[in-house]
């Protein structure tokens, strides 16, 4: 992770050593490599040596040993030990002495490999020949790029009325001699924008309507319509921001208050499309609802100095909003960029309540870094100000109109989302140049001009012709050789895949992990369907919640089913123990009265008359079972039973709960028989609603219990990761993730091939579809699946294979296998 401490200490020691130079002895002069005999070319032969071996410590603003090689002047001036070179006299030049390493404690370069004799020969010749320095070459600290807001001119050309993005791209294509390909067809376009804006596949009816639409601006209209689906837009972009802001519904830190969710705040911000400058300001200078981001993740115990909450905040503000990596600089001056320890601590200190001592590779330095933002060009922070004032100022610096880095970083992330590769790559290194500087700058300015409206910029990007170009094969693209030719083929995220599977199977998640104001978006998925009954606590005695006799009570409920449900989950609690039977067959039992038990009773149900029978026992004190049928006096304690059945067949809801229509008896003879002798069974006594004492169960206990086993229509982004989502690359959000790895791996496809989760979804989906489409032909079922999954008709060849898989008539196993095969197709998983 970081260079060894010893190496660093050596570096510091030798800085001191530089101050005392020995000089080259005549003996040593003999050992010097001879100067190169040809006229030396500075740019071709000397500059590369400086760049590889000297500049990291003596250029780009670093001045180790008070020595800088910015220019010929600073080189000649030298450092604490005097001039580095004497023009014309290489054998007397200190530089040569150092690179020869005559003093073993003082060898240059300190890091990396020593110079070769050939290189030293070149340096000697260069010095001897007058140390010529080509004009324009400088190793001074460069002004950071992509920082200040800049409004570029449009390129000249005939396309002045074209989409602004295309005006830049056309010029780019012309310069790169790329012939403009034809835009993708309507179906491919619709699939892209649905997935990109709201993360869902286009529903077949909407897709056909769109394809049939003859209006000229229908693509723009579609983009606008999707952007207006605030709920699904927000849910989809939760994934993007949760990854970036490390927000998750469970994870490390929550166990002991070392982490705080920002889910409610984030969802609301996305749902109302809060302007990005305000959004960022509320994360940097947080309200209680948004403070989770800068609070970080705090593990108990001693944490490395580079990972204190303040350092986490500094790293993440820099990375997420400014596209800057401060991680190296959190331990030591970075070797891979120009950031220093003081930069990292200067920013972290803004979040510190007291002085923050700099720690160099786990060693305290005794120094505090002056408080400052990483780009002083953007403004200063008064170190004397109190913390709230500092945070306010920091938020203002980052979100000010002149900060072109904030906007560039964000529009670049959007571009990366939609085109598969950023204008600047990697997207977290915004000090790299864009492949089209003017386009990046224009997008950033346009974004700010439009009030930092993310939806505006998304609309601009998705309505460009550039976005509508055919997808190009993604290959390993080395940074330098990249030429933009269109969006690259992308893979669905874990959440997109899971939601797409929901669209095909009808089986989504039951309950969101957070309490969000979901109302059902304008497109696609609807919110969770709750269970529609209000169950009551029951027993054989209305006072049982206070005290009931120990002993066994049998409870029964008879009900009629007009059709077989495709979903039949029951949730129950019993104080103390129970055995549950359905239609005379054992389903399960439990003895923990504080637990909600969930059972799937579908296999026990039949069309027509059904009955549920429960043997409920109120135990003796000390958790001792009373004898069968015996009520022991003097051992009273609370007893109760509550039950919910969630029975669904398609849209048909047949839920019921425990209430006074249940009957009870002490009779052990017929409790689990279809017929009972009515005179021995009486109506159950209602003790009260779900939340009554002494159990104090939450009103939504059913949903909570069903969340683990049940299925609904809640989208993947709103639930904690399960094995399927994890396998498909949803990160655990311990670290900031701005781009997910998307290539398939074997462990991932194993989960897809034999994982329980997907198998269960397909099984339930197959049952559901077959129940809902009773009697549909295999051809119709196959066509419908093709439309749902791939947005098109199957070809005749595909149709015949699909029918073969389904069977005639379609069987459950066939449905499962066809849905599996469709979901495994690159055409399904990839975004072309």
């Amino acid at each position, binding site marked *: 992770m970081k260079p060894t401490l010893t190496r660093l200490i050596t570096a510091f020691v030798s800085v001191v050593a530089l101050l005392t130079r020995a000089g080259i002895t005549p003996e040593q002069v003999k050992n010097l490599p001879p100067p190169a005999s040809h006229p030396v070319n500075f740019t071709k032969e000397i500059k590369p040596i400086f760049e590889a071996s000297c500049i990291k410590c003596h250029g780009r603003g670093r001045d180790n040993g008070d020595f800088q090689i910015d220019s010929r002047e600073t080189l000649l001036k030298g450092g604490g030990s005097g001039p580095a070179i004497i023009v014309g006299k290489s054998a007397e030049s200190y530089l040569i002495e150092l690179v020869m390493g005559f003093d073993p404690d003082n060898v240059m370069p300190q890091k990396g490999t020593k110079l070769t004799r050939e290189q030293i020969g070149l340096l000697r010749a260069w010095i001897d020949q007058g140390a010529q320095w080509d004009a324009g070459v400088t190793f001074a600290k460069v002004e950071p790029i992509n920082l200040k807001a800049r409004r570029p001119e449009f390129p000249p050309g005939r396309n002045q009325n074209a989409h602004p993005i295309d005006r830049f791209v056309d010029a780019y294509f012309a310069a790169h001699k790329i012939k403009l390909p034809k835009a993708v067809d309507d179906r491919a376009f619709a699939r892209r924008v649905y997935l990109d804006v709201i993360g869902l596949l286009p529903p077949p009816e909407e897709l056909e309507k769109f394809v049939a639409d003859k209006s000229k601006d229908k693509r723009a209209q579609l983009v606008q319509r999707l952007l207006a689906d605030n709920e699904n837009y927000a849910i989809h972009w939760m994934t993007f921001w949760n990854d970036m802001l490390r927000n998750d519904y469970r994870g490390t830190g929550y166990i002991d208050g070392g982490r705080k969710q920002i889910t409610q705040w984030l969802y609301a911000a996305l749902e109302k499309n809060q302007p990005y400058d305000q959004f960022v300001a509320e994360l940097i200078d947080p309200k209680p609802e948004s403070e989770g981001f800068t609070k970080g993740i705090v593990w108990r115990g001693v944490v490395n100095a580079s990972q204190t909450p303040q350092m986490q905040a500094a790293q993440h503000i820099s990375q997420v909003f400014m596209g800057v990596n401060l991680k190296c600089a959190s331990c030591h001056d970075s070797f891979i960029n120009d950031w220093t320890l003081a930069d990292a601590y200067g920013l972290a200190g803004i979040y510190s309540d007291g002085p923050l001592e700099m720690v160099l590779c786990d060693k305290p330095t005794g120094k505090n870094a002056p408080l400052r933002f990483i780009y002083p060009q953007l403004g200063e922070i008064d170190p004397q100000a109190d913390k709230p004032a500092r945070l306010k100022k920091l938020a203002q610096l980052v979100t000010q109109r002149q900060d072109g880095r904030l906007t560039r970083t964000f529009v670049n992330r959007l571009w990366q989302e939609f085109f598969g590769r950023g204008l600047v790559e990697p997207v977290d290194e915004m000090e790299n140049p864009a492949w089209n500087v003017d386009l990046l700058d224009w997008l950033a300015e346009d974004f700010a001009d439009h009030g930092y409206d993310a939806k505006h910029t998304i609309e601009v990007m998705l309505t460009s012709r550039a976005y509508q170009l055919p997808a190009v094969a*993604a290959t390993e693209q080395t940074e330098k050789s990249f030429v933009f030719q269109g969006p690259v083929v992308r*893979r669905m995220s874990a959440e997109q895949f899971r939601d797409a599977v929901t669209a095909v199977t009808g089986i989504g998640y039951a309950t969101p992990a957070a309490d969000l104001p979901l109302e059902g978006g304008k497109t696609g998925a609807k919110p969770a369907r709750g269970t529609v009954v209000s169950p009551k606590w029951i027993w054989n005695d209305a006072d049982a919640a206070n005290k009931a006799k120990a002993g066994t009570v049998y409870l029964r409920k008879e009900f009629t089913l007009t059709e077989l449900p495709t979903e039949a989950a029951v949730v129950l609690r019993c104080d103390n123990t129970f055995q549950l039977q359905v239609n005379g067959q054992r389903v399960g039992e439990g003895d923990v009265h504080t637990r909600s038990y969930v059972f799937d009773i579908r296999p026990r149900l039949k069309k027509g008359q059904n009955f549920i029978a429960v043997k409920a026992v109120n135990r003796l004190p000390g958790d001792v079972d009373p004898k069968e049928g015996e009520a022991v006096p003097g051992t009273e304690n609370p007893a109760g039973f509550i039950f919910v059945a969630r029975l669904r067949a398609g849209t048909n809801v047949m839920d019921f709960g425990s209430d006074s229509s249940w009957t009870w008896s002490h009779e052990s003879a017929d409790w689990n028989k279809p017929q009972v002798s009515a005179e021995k069974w009486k109506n159950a006594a209602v003790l009260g609603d779900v939340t009554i004492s002494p159990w104090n169960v939450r009103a939504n206990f059913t949903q909570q219990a069903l969340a683990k086993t049940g299925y609904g229509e809640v989208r993947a982004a709103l639930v904690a990761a399960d094995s399927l989502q994890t396998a498909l690359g949803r990160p655990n959000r311990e670290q900031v993730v701005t781009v997910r790895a998307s290539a398939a791996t074997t462990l991932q496809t194993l989960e897809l091939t034999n994982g329980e989760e997907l198998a269960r979804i397909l099984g339930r989906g197959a049952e559901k579809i077959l129940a809902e489409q009773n009697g549909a032909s295999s051809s119709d079922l196959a066509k419908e699946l093709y439309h749902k999954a791939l947005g098109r008709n199957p070809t005749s060849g595909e149709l015949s294979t699909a029918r073969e898989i389904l069977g005639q008539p379609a069987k459950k196993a066939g449905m499962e296998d066809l849905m599996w*095969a469709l979901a*495994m197709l690159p055409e399904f998983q990839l975004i072309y």
Partner: protein
Amino acid sequence: MKTNSQWSRRDFLKTASAATLSALAAGYPRVVFANEPAAEKLKATADTVIVLWMGGGMAHTETFDPKRYTPFEPGIASEKVLSTFPSIDTAVDTIKFSKGLEKLARVMDRGALIRTYTAGDLGFILHSRHQYHWHTGYAPPQTVAAPHLGAVIARTLGPLNPAVPAFINVGQRFDVGEGEELKAFTTAGFLGSEYGPFNIPFPDEAAGTVQPPGGMTPGRFEDRNKFYKKLLAASPVGEHGSDYQKESLIRSLDNAHRLLSSPAAKAFDLSLEPLETIRKYVPSYQPGRRFDAAQDRFGAKYEEQMVGRFGLGCLLARRLAEVGARYIEVTTEYIPFFNWDTHENGHTRLAAMKVQIDSPIAQLVLDLEERGLLNRTLIVLASEFSRDLMMEGKPDNLVKNQVEVPDVIQELKHYGMHRHFTDAGCVLLFGGGLKKGYLHGVTADERPCKTLKDRVIIEDLHASIFHALGISPKLAYEIEKRPFYVTRDGEGKPIPALFG
């Protein structure tokens, strides 16, 4: 040893090319050797590693480093109790074990014992943090996702048999207390999910993890794949030509299918073992016994229900090692306050824990030896830290009370090692080319029973494991342009004395 009898080179190349393809394209980290001569050529003495994880903190003085025994009687002074079990002889004259480990004692002549493993000083002594530290070599949190030891080995050496996942993790569930913390290190981290753990929480259900999904016959499974190939060929996306996303998906699916239909998958099926063999690992085993996944795994019944689960995990490890697994970890399972995490009733519960581990580990050693595999298989038994009855933490470094320790013990439940201790701990190693019958390190005979000589830290333990596998401790992978060393800062040093 394993002379490629069950897998062909061609298979391996196919897998390797798929992995390479995805690795390149997805920007998976590449190897770097910062300032080091390129890849030191090391000769491997082991091909497979089996880590036996005693999650929860295994007291050294109650297991492999017994001290003076003080039997329980009401009224004994706490400070007098160093061990709650008498010592027993082992096959090595100079090494004594604690009573209850008789079978392991008999195979000690095949192993090496480190008594001076010192867990990292991470401030509070906390299970999940120290487990993270043990398994990654780094203390959490980290700015990049640190990979698990198994993932590093999987990434560096690849699978030994391409039909067996390179990193198999047996016996740990993640929907338990501190499960999120366990997940944070049971991961390939930045190395990429290709190298992540193949989790088998219940060894008796392992077969299901490499079989077609529940209820699917092999015939239907083959048909499904055949039909898939037909639909794939018919899909117009084929016309788009080749790109790495598509190639990696198709190849990965092929790999998964090959794994699920490979003969090696049988290794996961414990039902193929004769009862007699299973009982050598789990003497109390009853045929048909299931660790019923749907039943209550918490509360008082947990430990009772789990008896034998670890033993079956060891048996599974043997079967996997036989077919060429690369890295297998079998855990007694970490759940706060269960198994080795004894904050009360330490003596009684440790007697039970020893029953859990003694037979299966000894049998694993003997079975591997009998099959000629022990020389090339390194077994490492370890725990995140040790325990003591009085001391919390390092000597003179008391942390706030976790448990009540009376000065005078009246009740049996107070008799045992109930507090976290980091200044010594045992690591038991077998095979893998290590010295046999060797004892490393000396600890004090009086409280605190701390390390006196030859301290071993995690960097050096990892370096030793890597060394046996032919991996340099200075190996680094690049992430965000920085080198991430497989031992912290590349500074781990193999313990020379462990190697012959």
